[in-house]
Protein backbone atom coordinates (compact mmCIF):
# COMPACT_ATOMS: atom_id res chain seq x y z
CA UNK A 1 0.00 0.00 0.00
CA UNK A 2 2.83 2.35 0.93
CA UNK A 3 4.56 1.50 -2.34
CA UNK A 4 1.40 2.33 -4.31
CA UNK A 5 1.00 5.62 -2.45
CA UNK A 6 4.61 6.44 -3.24
CA UNK A 7 4.06 5.67 -6.92
CA UNK A 8 0.92 7.80 -7.03
CA UNK A 9 2.65 10.74 -5.38
CA UNK A 10 5.67 10.70 -7.64
CA UNK A 11 3.23 10.20 -10.52
CA UNK A 12 1.54 13.41 -9.46
CA UNK A 13 4.92 15.14 -9.47
CA UNK A 14 5.77 14.08 -13.03
CA UNK A 15 2.12 14.70 -13.89
CA UNK A 16 2.71 18.32 -12.93
CA UNK A 17 5.40 18.57 -15.61
CA UNK A 18 3.17 16.93 -18.21
CA UNK A 19 0.39 19.28 -17.17
CA UNK A 20 2.61 22.32 -17.81
CA UNK A 21 3.62 21.12 -21.27
CA UNK A 22 0.00 20.13 -21.99
CA UNK A 23 -1.04 23.63 -20.94
CA UNK A 24 1.47 25.12 -23.37
CA UNK A 25 0.10 22.89 -26.15
CA UNK A 26 -3.48 23.90 -25.34
CA UNK A 27 -2.59 27.60 -25.36
CA UNK A 28 -1.28 27.36 -28.90
CA UNK A 29 -4.15 25.11 -29.96
CA UNK A 30 -6.75 27.53 -28.64
CA UNK A 31 -5.19 30.48 -30.41
CA UNK A 32 -4.37 28.88 -33.75
CA UNK A 33 -5.94 25.39 -33.83
CA UNK A 34 -2.50 23.95 -34.38
CA UNK A 35 -0.58 21.40 -32.35
CA UNK A 36 3.01 22.47 -31.81
CA UNK A 37 5.25 19.44 -32.24
CA UNK A 38 8.30 21.56 -31.42
CA UNK A 39 7.01 22.50 -27.96
CA UNK A 40 9.18 19.96 -26.17
CA UNK A 41 12.36 20.85 -28.03
CA UNK A 42 11.81 24.56 -27.35
CA UNK A 43 11.56 23.73 -23.65
CA UNK A 44 14.71 21.60 -23.85
CA UNK A 45 16.60 24.40 -25.57
CA UNK A 46 15.49 26.90 -22.93
CA UNK A 47 16.66 24.53 -20.21
CA UNK A 48 20.11 24.39 -21.79
CA UNK A 49 20.16 28.17 -21.73
CA UNK A 50 19.38 28.08 -18.00
CA UNK A 51 22.14 25.51 -17.49
CA UNK A 52 24.67 27.72 -19.29
CA UNK A 53 23.67 30.72 -17.17
CA UNK A 54 23.98 28.72 -13.95
CA UNK A 55 27.38 27.40 -15.05
CA UNK A 56 28.41 31.01 -15.65
CA UNK A 57 27.66 31.81 -12.00
CA UNK A 58 24.18 33.36 -12.24
CA UNK A 59 22.10 32.45 -9.15
CA UNK A 60 19.32 29.89 -9.84
CA UNK A 61 16.31 32.17 -9.68
CA UNK A 62 18.10 34.83 -11.71
CA UNK A 63 18.82 32.27 -14.42
CA UNK A 64 15.20 31.08 -14.12
CA UNK A 65 13.84 34.57 -14.77
CA UNK A 66 16.22 35.28 -17.65
CA UNK A 67 15.37 31.94 -19.28
CA UNK A 68 11.63 32.51 -19.02
CA UNK A 69 12.03 35.97 -20.55
CA UNK A 70 14.24 34.67 -23.37
CA UNK A 71 11.81 31.84 -24.10
CA UNK A 72 9.00 34.38 -24.34
CA UNK A 73 10.91 36.48 -26.87
CA UNK A 74 11.91 33.36 -28.83
CA UNK A 75 8.30 32.15 -28.89
CA UNK A 76 7.07 35.49 -30.25
CA UNK A 77 9.87 35.57 -32.82
CA UNK A 78 9.14 32.05 -34.04
CA UNK A 79 5.46 32.85 -34.48
CA UNK A 80 6.19 36.03 -36.42
CA UNK A 81 8.95 34.64 -38.62
CA UNK A 82 8.40 30.92 -39.13
CA UNK A 83 4.76 30.08 -38.40
CA UNK A 84 3.12 33.19 -39.91
CA UNK A 85 3.79 32.30 -43.56
CA UNK A 86 2.06 28.93 -43.22
CA UNK A 87 -0.85 30.13 -41.07
CA UNK A 88 -3.46 29.42 -43.71
CA UNK A 89 -1.61 26.64 -45.50
CA UNK A 90 -2.85 23.03 -45.48
CA UNK A 91 -2.26 21.05 -42.28
CA UNK A 92 0.51 19.00 -43.87
CA UNK A 93 2.64 22.10 -44.52
CA UNK A 94 2.16 23.25 -40.93
CA UNK A 95 3.10 19.85 -39.50
CA UNK A 96 6.22 19.77 -41.67
CA UNK A 97 7.25 23.22 -40.47
CA UNK A 98 6.81 22.17 -36.84
CA UNK A 99 8.78 18.97 -37.42
CA UNK A 100 11.49 21.07 -39.05
CA UNK A 101 11.62 23.26 -35.93
CA UNK A 102 11.78 20.13 -33.79
CA UNK A 103 14.82 18.68 -35.55
CA UNK A 104 16.54 22.07 -35.83
CA UNK A 105 16.33 22.76 -32.09
CA UNK A 106 17.23 19.18 -31.24
CA UNK A 107 20.32 19.15 -33.41
CA UNK A 108 21.37 22.70 -32.47
CA UNK A 109 21.32 21.69 -28.81
CA UNK A 110 23.39 18.60 -29.62
CA UNK A 111 25.78 20.72 -31.66
CA UNK A 112 26.27 23.44 -29.05
CA UNK A 113 26.13 21.42 -25.83
CA UNK A 114 27.00 17.89 -27.10
CA UNK A 115 24.91 14.78 -26.44
CA UNK A 116 26.47 13.91 -23.07
CA UNK A 117 24.03 13.85 -20.18
CA UNK A 118 24.33 16.78 -17.79
CA UNK A 119 23.02 17.07 -14.23
CA UNK A 120 20.73 20.06 -13.68
CA UNK A 121 20.37 21.65 -10.23
CA UNK A 122 17.08 21.74 -8.35
CA UNK A 123 16.18 24.93 -6.48
CA UNK A 124 14.62 22.93 -3.66
CA UNK A 125 16.40 21.36 -0.65
CA UNK A 126 17.56 17.77 -1.03
CA UNK A 127 15.95 16.65 2.25
CA UNK A 128 12.24 15.78 2.06
CA UNK A 129 10.07 18.49 3.53
CA UNK A 130 8.06 18.06 6.74
CA UNK A 131 9.88 14.80 7.51
CA UNK A 132 7.66 12.77 5.17
CA UNK A 133 9.09 9.75 3.38
CA UNK A 134 6.80 9.63 0.36
CA UNK A 135 7.66 12.56 -1.78
CA UNK A 136 10.90 14.49 -2.30
CA UNK A 137 10.96 18.21 -1.90
CA UNK A 138 11.80 18.67 -5.58
CA UNK A 139 8.62 16.80 -6.51
CA UNK A 140 6.58 18.91 -4.10
CA UNK A 141 8.26 22.08 -5.29
CA UNK A 142 7.68 21.42 -8.98
CA UNK A 143 4.03 20.58 -8.28
CA UNK A 144 3.67 23.88 -6.41
CA UNK A 145 5.27 25.79 -9.27
CA UNK A 146 2.98 24.12 -11.82
CA UNK A 147 -0.06 25.07 -9.82
CA UNK A 148 1.26 28.62 -9.34
CA UNK A 149 1.74 28.98 -13.11
CA UNK A 150 -1.78 27.72 -13.68
CA UNK A 151 -3.18 30.21 -11.15
CA UNK A 152 -1.21 33.09 -12.70
CA UNK A 153 -2.50 32.19 -16.16
CA UNK A 154 -6.05 31.98 -14.90
CA UNK A 155 -5.78 35.42 -13.28
CA UNK A 156 -4.15 36.83 -16.40
CA UNK A 157 -6.81 35.57 -18.79
CA UNK A 158 -9.72 36.26 -16.48
CA UNK A 159 -8.91 39.66 -14.98
CA UNK A 160 -6.64 41.62 -17.29
CA UNK A 161 -7.64 43.53 -20.46
CA UNK A 162 -4.77 41.93 -22.38
CA UNK A 163 -5.91 38.46 -21.34
CA UNK A 164 -9.43 39.30 -22.47
CA UNK A 165 -8.12 40.57 -25.80
CA UNK A 166 -6.16 37.34 -26.30
CA UNK A 167 -9.21 35.22 -25.57
CA UNK A 168 -11.29 37.29 -27.95
CA UNK A 169 -8.69 36.99 -30.69
CA UNK A 170 -8.67 33.23 -30.30
CA UNK A 171 -12.46 32.86 -30.26
CA UNK A 172 -13.49 35.27 -32.96
CA UNK A 173 -10.67 36.85 -34.95
CA UNK A 174 -12.90 38.87 -37.32
CA UNK A 175 -14.98 40.57 -34.62
CA UNK A 176 -11.87 41.16 -32.53
CA UNK A 177 -10.23 42.93 -35.43
CA UNK A 178 -13.31 45.13 -35.80
CA UNK A 179 -13.04 46.33 -32.22
CA UNK A 180 -9.36 47.14 -32.65
CA UNK A 181 -7.56 44.11 -31.27
CA UNK A 182 -4.35 43.32 -33.14
CA UNK A 183 -5.08 39.65 -33.67
CA UNK A 184 -1.69 38.78 -35.19
CA UNK A 185 0.15 40.11 -32.17
CA UNK A 186 -2.22 38.31 -29.79
CA UNK A 187 -1.30 35.02 -31.47
CA UNK A 188 2.38 35.88 -31.17
CA UNK A 189 1.90 36.67 -27.47
CA UNK A 190 0.21 33.29 -27.05
CA UNK A 191 3.25 31.62 -28.58
CA UNK A 192 5.50 33.60 -26.26
CA UNK A 193 3.50 32.56 -23.19
CA UNK A 194 3.47 28.93 -24.31
CA UNK A 195 7.24 28.98 -24.80
CA UNK A 196 7.70 30.44 -21.30
CA UNK A 197 5.49 27.78 -19.73
CA UNK A 198 7.45 25.14 -21.62
CA UNK A 199 10.72 26.60 -20.35
CA UNK A 200 9.49 26.37 -16.76
CA UNK A 201 8.43 22.77 -17.33
CA UNK A 202 11.85 21.99 -18.82
CA UNK A 203 13.68 23.44 -15.84
CA UNK A 204 11.44 21.51 -13.46
CA UNK A 205 11.88 18.17 -15.21
CA UNK A 206 15.62 18.43 -15.93
CA UNK A 207 16.78 17.53 -12.38
CA UNK A 208 14.90 14.21 -12.55
CA UNK A 209 15.53 13.09 -16.15
CA UNK A 210 18.93 14.85 -16.60
CA UNK A 211 19.66 17.31 -19.31
CA UNK A 212 20.18 15.99 -22.84
CA UNK A 213 18.84 16.95 -26.26
CA UNK A 214 16.26 14.13 -26.36
CA UNK A 215 14.94 14.58 -22.84
CA UNK A 216 11.60 16.05 -23.88
CA UNK A 217 10.64 13.44 -26.50
CA UNK A 218 8.71 11.19 -24.14
CA UNK A 219 7.43 14.11 -22.11
CA UNK A 220 5.91 15.72 -25.17
CA UNK A 221 3.99 12.50 -25.83
CA UNK A 222 2.67 12.33 -22.26
CA UNK A 223 1.69 15.96 -22.58
CA UNK A 224 -0.18 15.18 -25.81
CA UNK A 225 -1.90 12.32 -24.05
CA UNK A 226 -2.80 14.59 -21.12
CA UNK A 227 -4.05 17.40 -23.34
CA UNK A 228 -6.18 15.03 -25.42
CA UNK A 229 -7.51 13.26 -22.33
CA UNK A 230 -8.58 16.53 -20.73
CA UNK A 231 -9.79 18.05 -23.98
CA UNK A 232 -7.43 19.88 -26.30
CA UNK A 233 -9.39 23.12 -26.02
CA UNK A 234 -9.76 23.17 -22.24
CA UNK A 235 -6.78 24.48 -20.19
CA UNK A 236 -8.10 23.16 -16.89
CA UNK A 237 -8.86 19.80 -18.49
CA UNK A 238 -5.36 19.63 -19.93
CA UNK A 239 -3.83 20.17 -16.49
CA UNK A 240 -6.01 17.48 -14.93
CA UNK A 241 -5.26 15.20 -17.89
CA UNK A 242 -1.54 15.76 -17.37
CA UNK A 243 -1.80 14.71 -13.73
CA UNK A 244 -3.87 11.61 -14.60
CA UNK A 245 -1.36 10.57 -17.27
CA UNK A 246 1.50 11.09 -14.80
CA UNK A 247 -0.10 8.80 -12.23
CA UNK A 248 -1.08 6.17 -14.80
CA UNK A 249 2.38 6.17 -16.32
CA UNK A 250 4.07 5.72 -12.94
CA UNK A 251 1.75 2.98 -11.72
CA UNK A 252 2.01 1.05 -14.99
CA UNK A 253 5.76 1.54 -14.96
CA UNK A 254 5.99 0.11 -11.45
CA UNK A 255 3.64 -2.84 -11.82
CA UNK A 256 3.81 -3.81 -15.51
CA UNK A 257 7.32 -2.79 -16.48
CA UNK A 258 9.08 0.43 -17.39
CA UNK A 259 9.49 -0.75 -21.00
CA UNK A 260 5.83 -0.08 -21.67
CA UNK A 261 5.68 3.49 -20.37
CA UNK A 262 5.58 5.09 -23.82
CA UNK A 263 3.08 2.50 -24.99
CA UNK A 264 0.79 3.78 -22.22
CA UNK A 265 0.92 7.19 -23.88
CA UNK A 266 0.18 5.61 -27.28
CA UNK A 267 -2.78 3.67 -25.90
CA UNK A 268 -4.19 6.73 -24.14
CA UNK A 269 -3.82 8.90 -27.24
CA UNK A 270 -5.43 6.42 -29.63
CA UNK A 271 -8.03 5.37 -27.04
CA UNK A 272 -9.17 8.91 -26.29
CA UNK A 273 -9.23 9.91 -29.94
CA UNK A 274 -11.32 6.91 -30.85
CA UNK A 275 -13.71 6.73 -27.91
CA UNK A 276 -14.10 10.36 -26.98
CA UNK A 277 -12.26 12.68 -29.37
CA UNK A 278 -13.27 15.81 -27.45
CA UNK A 279 -11.67 14.56 -24.22
CA UNK A 280 -13.17 14.81 -20.76
CA UNK A 281 -13.83 18.55 -20.76
CA UNK A 282 -13.44 19.64 -24.36
CA UNK A 283 -16.16 20.96 -26.57
CA UNK A 284 -17.58 18.56 -29.12
CA UNK A 285 -16.72 19.71 -32.59
CA UNK A 286 -19.41 19.72 -35.20
CA UNK A 287 -18.38 20.16 -38.79
CA UNK A 288 -20.71 21.94 -41.11
CA UNK A 289 -20.96 20.23 -44.44
Amino acid at each position, binding site marked *: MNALLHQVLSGLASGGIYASVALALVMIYQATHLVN*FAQGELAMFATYLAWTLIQAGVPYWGAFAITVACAFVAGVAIERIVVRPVENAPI*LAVVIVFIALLVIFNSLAGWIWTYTIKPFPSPFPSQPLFGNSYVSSHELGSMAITLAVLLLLFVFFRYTPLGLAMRAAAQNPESSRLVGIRVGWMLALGWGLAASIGAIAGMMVAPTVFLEPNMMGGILLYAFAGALLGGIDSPGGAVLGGFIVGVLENVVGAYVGTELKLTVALVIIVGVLVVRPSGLFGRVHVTRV
Partner: protein
Amino acid sequence: MSAVPPVTTAPRVPVADAVAAPVPVEAAAAVQAAPAQPPRRLERRHLVAVVVLLALACALPFFIANYRIFQLTLALAYAIALLGLNMLTGYNGQISLGHGAFFAIGAYTAAILMDKADWPYWATIPVAGVVCLAAGFLFGLPALRLEGLYLAVATLALAYAMPQILKHKAIEHWTGGVQGIVIVKPDPPWGLPISQDQWLYFFVLAWLVVLFVVGWNLLRGRIGRAMVAIRDQPVAAKAMGIDTAMVKSATFGVSALYAGVAGALNAIAVQFVAPDSFQPFLSITLLVGIVIGGLASISGAFWGALFIQFVPNVADQLSKAAPWALYGVFLLAFMYAMPFGVAGFVQRVAARFRRSPRGPA
Protein backbone atom coordinates in the same frame (compact mmCIF):
# COMPACT_ATOMS: atom_id res chain seq x y z
CA MET B 1 -33.14 5.51 -75.07
CA SER B 2 -29.98 4.89 -77.04
CA ALA B 3 -28.91 8.52 -76.60
CA VAL B 4 -28.69 8.12 -72.82
CA PRO B 5 -25.22 7.08 -71.72
CA PRO B 6 -24.98 3.77 -69.89
CA VAL B 7 -26.01 4.32 -66.28
CA THR B 8 -23.24 2.26 -64.76
CA THR B 9 -20.42 4.47 -65.95
CA ALA B 10 -22.16 7.77 -65.33
CA PRO B 11 -21.26 8.22 -61.64
CA ARG B 12 -17.59 7.73 -62.36
CA VAL B 13 -17.20 10.64 -64.72
CA PRO B 14 -17.67 13.43 -62.16
CA VAL B 15 -14.94 11.94 -59.97
CA ALA B 16 -12.37 12.37 -62.66
CA ASP B 17 -13.69 15.87 -63.35
CA ALA B 18 -13.49 16.85 -59.71
CA VAL B 19 -9.92 15.70 -59.53
CA ALA B 20 -8.87 17.41 -62.69
CA ALA B 21 -10.61 20.66 -61.77
CA PRO B 22 -8.20 23.40 -60.69
CA VAL B 23 -7.80 23.74 -56.93
CA PRO B 24 -9.27 26.96 -55.50
CA VAL B 25 -6.62 29.67 -55.30
CA GLU B 26 -6.58 30.05 -51.52
CA ALA B 27 -6.25 26.33 -51.00
CA ALA B 28 -3.49 26.16 -53.56
CA ALA B 29 -0.89 27.41 -51.09
CA ALA B 30 2.15 25.31 -50.25
CA VAL B 31 1.33 21.63 -50.42
CA GLN B 32 -1.53 21.88 -52.85
CA ALA B 33 0.95 23.32 -55.31
CA ALA B 34 2.24 19.77 -55.64
CA PRO B 35 1.08 18.13 -58.87
CA ALA B 36 -2.52 17.40 -58.02
CA GLN B 37 -3.30 14.74 -60.57
CA PRO B 38 -2.38 11.11 -60.31
CA PRO B 39 0.25 10.05 -62.80
CA ARG B 40 -1.01 9.62 -66.33
CA ARG B 41 -0.14 7.15 -69.04
CA LEU B 42 3.52 6.87 -69.88
CA GLU B 43 4.41 8.81 -72.97
CA ARG B 44 7.03 7.29 -75.22
CA ARG B 45 9.86 9.59 -74.10
CA HIS B 46 9.11 8.70 -70.47
CA LEU B 47 9.28 5.04 -71.35
CA VAL B 48 12.63 5.56 -73.07
CA ALA B 49 13.92 7.46 -70.02
CA VAL B 50 12.81 4.69 -67.67
CA VAL B 51 14.47 2.00 -69.80
CA VAL B 52 17.71 3.99 -70.02
CA LEU B 53 17.71 4.61 -66.26
CA LEU B 54 17.05 0.96 -65.55
CA ALA B 55 19.93 -0.07 -67.85
CA LEU B 56 22.18 2.42 -66.05
CA ALA B 57 21.04 1.05 -62.68
CA CYS B 58 21.91 -2.48 -63.83
CA ALA B 59 25.33 -1.47 -65.13
CA LEU B 60 26.30 0.70 -62.16
CA PRO B 61 27.31 -2.01 -59.65
CA PHE B 62 30.00 -3.28 -62.02
CA PHE B 63 31.85 0.04 -61.91
CA ILE B 64 31.81 1.09 -58.26
CA ALA B 65 33.24 -0.20 -54.97
CA ASN B 66 31.30 -2.71 -52.88
CA TYR B 67 30.73 -0.17 -50.13
CA ARG B 68 29.08 2.25 -52.55
CA ILE B 69 26.93 -0.59 -53.88
CA PHE B 70 25.83 -1.28 -50.32
CA GLN B 71 24.88 2.37 -49.83
CA LEU B 72 22.93 2.39 -53.09
CA THR B 73 21.13 -0.78 -51.98
CA LEU B 74 20.00 0.99 -48.82
CA ALA B 75 18.90 3.99 -50.88
CA LEU B 76 16.78 1.73 -53.12
CA ALA B 77 15.14 0.22 -50.03
CA TYR B 78 14.41 3.73 -48.73
CA ALA B 79 12.87 4.60 -52.09
CA ILE B 80 10.32 1.80 -51.61
CA ALA B 81 9.41 3.08 -48.14
CA LEU B 82 9.17 6.63 -49.45
CA LEU B 83 6.78 5.62 -52.23
CA GLY B 84 4.60 3.95 -49.58
CA LEU B 85 4.61 6.99 -47.32
CA ASN B 86 3.97 9.25 -50.29
CA MET B 87 0.84 7.26 -51.22
CA LEU B 88 -0.51 7.89 -47.74
CA THR B 89 0.69 11.41 -47.06
CA GLY B 90 1.22 12.92 -50.49
CA TYR B 91 -1.68 11.41 -52.41
CA ASN B 92 -4.18 10.58 -49.69
CA GLY B 93 -3.38 13.47 -47.35
CA GLN B 94 -3.09 11.38 -44.18
CA ILE B 95 -0.06 12.54 -42.22
CA SER B 96 2.05 9.76 -40.73
CA LEU B 97 4.97 10.56 -38.46
CA GLY B 98 5.29 6.88 -37.55
CA HIS B 99 6.18 4.96 -40.67
CA GLY B 100 9.50 4.00 -39.11
CA ALA B 101 7.44 1.68 -36.91
CA PHE B 102 6.19 -0.31 -39.92
CA PHE B 103 9.70 -0.28 -41.34
CA ALA B 104 10.78 -1.86 -38.03
CA ILE B 105 8.00 -4.46 -38.08
CA GLY B 106 9.02 -5.52 -41.59
CA ALA B 107 12.69 -5.71 -40.63
CA TYR B 108 11.96 -7.77 -37.53
CA THR B 109 9.60 -10.11 -39.40
CA ALA B 110 12.33 -10.92 -41.90
CA ALA B 111 15.01 -11.28 -39.24
CA ILE B 112 12.94 -13.52 -36.96
CA LEU B 113 11.86 -15.78 -39.84
CA MET B 114 15.46 -16.17 -40.95
CA ASP B 115 16.94 -16.55 -37.49
CA LYS B 116 14.33 -18.67 -35.68
CA ALA B 117 12.57 -20.51 -38.51
CA ASP B 118 15.50 -20.84 -40.93
CA TRP B 119 13.55 -19.38 -43.80
CA PRO B 120 15.49 -18.40 -46.91
CA TYR B 121 15.89 -14.62 -47.13
CA TRP B 122 13.88 -14.22 -50.34
CA ALA B 123 10.81 -15.89 -48.84
CA THR B 124 10.66 -13.50 -45.89
CA ILE B 125 9.98 -10.40 -47.99
CA PRO B 126 6.35 -11.16 -48.97
CA VAL B 127 5.61 -12.26 -45.40
CA ALA B 128 7.03 -9.01 -44.03
CA GLY B 129 4.83 -7.15 -46.50
CA VAL B 130 1.68 -9.03 -45.54
CA VAL B 131 2.34 -8.64 -41.80
CA CYS B 132 2.74 -4.89 -42.27
CA LEU B 133 -0.33 -4.72 -44.51
CA ALA B 134 -2.34 -6.23 -41.66
CA ALA B 135 -0.68 -4.03 -39.03
CA GLY B 136 -1.19 -0.92 -41.12
CA PHE B 137 -4.80 -1.76 -41.90
CA LEU B 138 -5.53 -2.38 -38.20
CA PHE B 139 -3.84 0.86 -37.18
CA GLY B 140 -5.62 2.61 -40.03
CA LEU B 141 -9.07 1.58 -38.78
CA PRO B 142 -9.08 3.74 -35.63
CA ALA B 143 -6.94 6.27 -37.46
CA LEU B 144 -9.91 6.82 -39.79
CA ARG B 145 -11.57 8.83 -37.11
CA LEU B 146 -8.48 10.96 -36.69
CA GLU B 147 -7.93 13.83 -39.01
CA GLY B 148 -4.86 15.83 -39.88
CA LEU B 149 -3.10 16.83 -36.72
CA TYR B 150 -4.56 14.08 -34.56
CA LEU B 151 -3.36 11.36 -36.88
CA ALA B 152 0.07 12.99 -36.83
CA VAL B 153 0.06 12.91 -33.02
CA ALA B 154 -1.08 9.28 -32.84
CA THR B 155 1.49 8.09 -35.38
CA LEU B 156 4.23 10.07 -33.63
CA ALA B 157 3.32 8.20 -30.44
CA LEU B 158 3.60 4.93 -32.37
CA ALA B 159 7.08 5.94 -33.54
CA TYR B 160 8.17 6.63 -29.97
CA ALA B 161 6.60 3.49 -28.53
CA MET B 162 7.99 1.04 -31.11
CA PRO B 163 11.61 0.74 -29.84
CA GLN B 164 10.29 0.18 -26.31
CA ILE B 165 7.83 -2.47 -27.47
CA LEU B 166 10.62 -4.26 -29.35
CA LYS B 167 12.72 -4.35 -26.17
CA HIS B 168 9.91 -5.82 -24.09
CA LYS B 169 10.70 -8.98 -22.14
CA ALA B 170 7.63 -10.92 -23.25
CA ILE B 171 8.89 -11.10 -26.84
CA GLU B 172 12.60 -11.11 -26.03
CA HIS B 173 12.84 -14.74 -27.02
CA TRP B 174 11.93 -13.72 -30.55
CA THR B 175 13.42 -10.27 -30.87
CA GLY B 176 16.66 -10.78 -28.93
CA GLY B 177 15.81 -7.78 -26.73
CA VAL B 178 18.29 -4.89 -26.77
CA GLN B 179 20.91 -7.07 -28.49
CA GLY B 180 18.79 -7.49 -31.60
CA ILE B 181 19.29 -10.24 -34.18
CA VAL B 182 22.26 -10.85 -36.44
CA ILE B 183 21.41 -12.46 -39.79
CA VAL B 184 23.60 -13.99 -42.47
CA LYS B 185 24.35 -12.20 -45.70
CA PRO B 186 22.91 -14.18 -48.63
CA ASP B 187 25.16 -15.57 -51.36
CA PRO B 188 24.32 -15.03 -55.02
CA PRO B 189 22.30 -18.01 -56.33
CA TRP B 190 22.95 -20.28 -59.34
CA GLY B 191 26.70 -19.77 -59.05
CA LEU B 192 26.49 -16.26 -60.51
CA PRO B 193 29.95 -14.69 -60.70
CA ILE B 194 29.05 -11.54 -58.75
CA SER B 195 29.77 -10.40 -55.20
CA GLN B 196 27.26 -10.62 -52.34
CA ASP B 197 26.79 -6.86 -52.40
CA GLN B 198 26.12 -6.85 -56.12
CA TRP B 199 23.58 -9.65 -55.75
CA LEU B 200 21.75 -7.86 -52.94
CA TYR B 201 21.65 -4.73 -55.03
CA PHE B 202 19.95 -6.58 -57.89
CA PHE B 203 17.62 -8.33 -55.46
CA VAL B 204 16.46 -5.01 -53.99
CA LEU B 205 16.30 -3.44 -57.46
CA ALA B 206 13.99 -6.22 -58.65
CA TRP B 207 11.62 -5.68 -55.73
CA LEU B 208 11.74 -1.97 -56.35
CA VAL B 209 10.77 -2.35 -59.99
CA VAL B 210 7.86 -4.66 -59.12
CA LEU B 211 6.57 -2.42 -56.34
CA PHE B 212 6.92 0.76 -58.38
CA VAL B 213 5.04 -0.70 -61.33
CA VAL B 214 2.29 -1.86 -58.97
CA GLY B 215 2.23 1.50 -57.18
CA TRP B 216 2.14 3.43 -60.43
CA ASN B 217 -0.77 1.36 -61.68
CA LEU B 218 -2.58 1.80 -58.38
CA LEU B 219 -2.12 5.56 -58.36
CA ARG B 220 -3.00 6.30 -61.98
CA GLY B 221 -6.29 4.42 -61.94
CA ARG B 222 -9.63 4.70 -60.21
CA ILE B 223 -8.13 4.09 -56.76
CA GLY B 224 -5.49 6.77 -57.22
CA ARG B 225 -8.14 9.29 -58.26
CA ALA B 226 -10.24 8.33 -55.25
CA MET B 227 -7.24 8.86 -52.97
CA VAL B 228 -6.54 12.33 -54.34
CA ALA B 229 -10.24 13.21 -54.23
CA ILE B 230 -10.37 12.28 -50.53
CA ARG B 231 -7.34 14.48 -49.87
CA ASP B 232 -8.68 17.54 -51.66
CA GLN B 233 -12.46 17.35 -51.24
CA PRO B 234 -13.44 14.73 -48.66
CA VAL B 235 -17.12 15.64 -48.61
CA ALA B 236 -17.44 15.73 -52.38
CA ALA B 237 -15.59 12.42 -52.62
CA LYS B 238 -18.07 10.82 -50.26
CA ALA B 239 -21.01 12.31 -52.10
CA MET B 240 -19.74 10.79 -55.33
CA GLY B 241 -19.86 7.33 -53.91
CA ILE B 242 -16.26 6.76 -52.84
CA ASP B 243 -16.09 4.50 -49.79
CA THR B 244 -13.79 6.91 -47.97
CA ALA B 245 -13.37 4.72 -44.89
CA MET B 246 -12.34 1.74 -46.96
CA VAL B 247 -10.01 3.69 -49.24
CA LYS B 248 -8.33 5.44 -46.32
CA SER B 249 -7.61 2.34 -44.27
CA ALA B 250 -6.62 0.34 -47.35
CA THR B 251 -4.21 3.13 -48.29
CA PHE B 252 -2.80 2.97 -44.78
CA GLY B 253 -2.35 -0.78 -45.16
CA VAL B 254 -0.71 -0.65 -48.59
CA SER B 255 1.53 2.17 -47.47
CA ALA B 256 2.60 0.10 -44.44
CA LEU B 257 3.21 -2.86 -46.77
CA TYR B 258 5.69 -0.79 -48.79
CA ALA B 259 7.39 0.38 -45.60
CA GLY B 260 7.53 -3.21 -44.31
CA VAL B 261 9.06 -4.62 -47.49
CA ALA B 262 11.60 -1.79 -47.41
CA GLY B 263 12.38 -2.62 -43.77
CA ALA B 264 12.87 -6.31 -44.55
CA LEU B 265 15.18 -5.51 -47.49
CA ASN B 266 17.08 -3.08 -45.30
CA ALA B 267 17.49 -5.70 -42.55
CA ILE B 268 18.85 -8.27 -45.03
CA ALA B 269 21.28 -5.73 -46.48
CA VAL B 270 22.51 -4.52 -43.08
CA GLN B 271 22.44 -8.11 -41.66
CA PHE B 272 21.33 -6.80 -38.29
CA VAL B 273 18.22 -5.52 -36.54
CA ALA B 274 18.08 -3.88 -33.10
CA PRO B 275 15.45 -1.70 -31.43
CA ASP B 276 17.74 1.30 -31.45
CA SER B 277 18.00 1.28 -35.25
CA PHE B 278 14.33 2.26 -35.34
CA GLN B 279 14.31 5.44 -33.27
CA PRO B 280 11.45 7.91 -33.78
CA PHE B 281 13.74 10.03 -35.90
CA LEU B 282 13.69 7.30 -38.55
CA SER B 283 10.05 8.20 -39.19
CA ILE B 284 11.00 11.85 -39.46
CA THR B 285 13.76 10.90 -41.90
CA LEU B 286 11.13 9.30 -44.12
CA LEU B 287 9.00 12.45 -43.92
CA VAL B 288 12.05 14.51 -44.88
CA GLY B 289 12.54 12.16 -47.83
CA ILE B 290 9.07 12.67 -49.29
CA VAL B 291 9.12 16.43 -48.77
CA ILE B 292 12.52 16.83 -50.43
CA GLY B 293 11.71 14.35 -53.20
CA GLY B 294 8.31 15.82 -53.90
CA LEU B 295 4.91 15.22 -52.31
CA ALA B 296 2.47 13.29 -54.48
CA SER B 297 5.06 12.26 -57.02
CA ILE B 298 6.44 8.83 -57.85
CA SER B 299 9.87 9.83 -59.13
CA GLY B 300 10.23 11.94 -55.99
CA ALA B 301 10.84 8.75 -54.03
CA PHE B 302 14.22 8.35 -55.75
CA TRP B 303 15.34 11.92 -55.15
CA GLY B 304 14.26 11.68 -51.53
CA ALA B 305 16.00 8.33 -51.03
CA LEU B 306 19.26 9.61 -52.48
CA PHE B 307 18.98 12.66 -50.25
CA ILE B 308 18.39 10.81 -46.99
CA GLN B 309 21.04 8.20 -47.82
CA PHE B 310 23.90 10.41 -48.97
CA VAL B 311 23.47 13.90 -47.50
CA PRO B 312 23.94 12.70 -43.88
CA ASN B 313 27.14 10.90 -44.94
CA VAL B 314 28.56 14.17 -46.18
CA ALA B 315 27.23 16.29 -43.32
CA ASP B 316 28.42 13.79 -40.70
CA GLN B 317 31.98 14.89 -41.25
CA LEU B 318 31.07 18.32 -39.91
CA SER B 319 29.40 17.27 -36.66
CA LYS B 320 27.18 14.52 -35.31
CA ALA B 321 24.30 16.97 -35.16
CA ALA B 322 24.89 18.46 -38.60
CA PRO B 323 22.74 16.02 -40.65
CA TRP B 324 19.68 16.80 -38.57
CA ALA B 325 20.30 20.53 -38.59
CA LEU B 326 20.53 20.26 -42.37
CA TYR B 327 17.35 18.17 -42.55
CA GLY B 328 15.50 20.82 -40.59
CA VAL B 329 16.78 23.69 -42.68
CA PHE B 330 16.01 21.80 -45.89
CA LEU B 331 12.48 21.03 -44.67
CA LEU B 332 11.80 24.70 -43.95
CA ALA B 333 13.40 25.86 -47.19
CA PHE B 334 11.46 23.36 -49.28
CA MET B 335 8.15 24.17 -47.58
CA TYR B 336 8.55 27.87 -48.29
CA ALA B 337 10.36 27.86 -51.61
CA MET B 338 9.84 24.50 -53.32
CA PRO B 339 6.76 22.78 -51.84
CA PHE B 340 6.65 20.45 -54.85
CA GLY B 341 10.11 19.05 -54.07
CA VAL B 342 12.93 18.08 -56.39
CA ALA B 343 10.61 16.07 -58.64
CA GLY B 344 8.36 19.09 -59.15
CA PHE B 345 11.40 21.27 -59.78
CA VAL B 346 12.75 18.87 -62.40
CA GLN B 347 9.33 18.78 -64.06
CA ARG B 348 9.17 22.56 -64.28
CA VAL B 349 12.67 22.87 -65.67
CA ALA B 350 11.85 20.18 -68.22
CA ALA B 351 8.62 21.98 -69.14
CA ARG B 352 10.52 25.22 -69.69
CA PHE B 353 12.97 23.60 -72.08
CA ARG B 354 10.27 21.83 -74.01
CA ARG B 355 9.10 23.92 -76.95
CA SER B 356 5.76 22.44 -77.80
CA PRO B 357 3.02 22.49 -75.18
CA ARG B 358 2.05 19.12 -73.78
CA GLY B 359 -0.36 17.28 -76.07
CA PRO B 360 -3.61 15.78 -74.88
CA ALA B 361 -2.98 12.86 -72.55
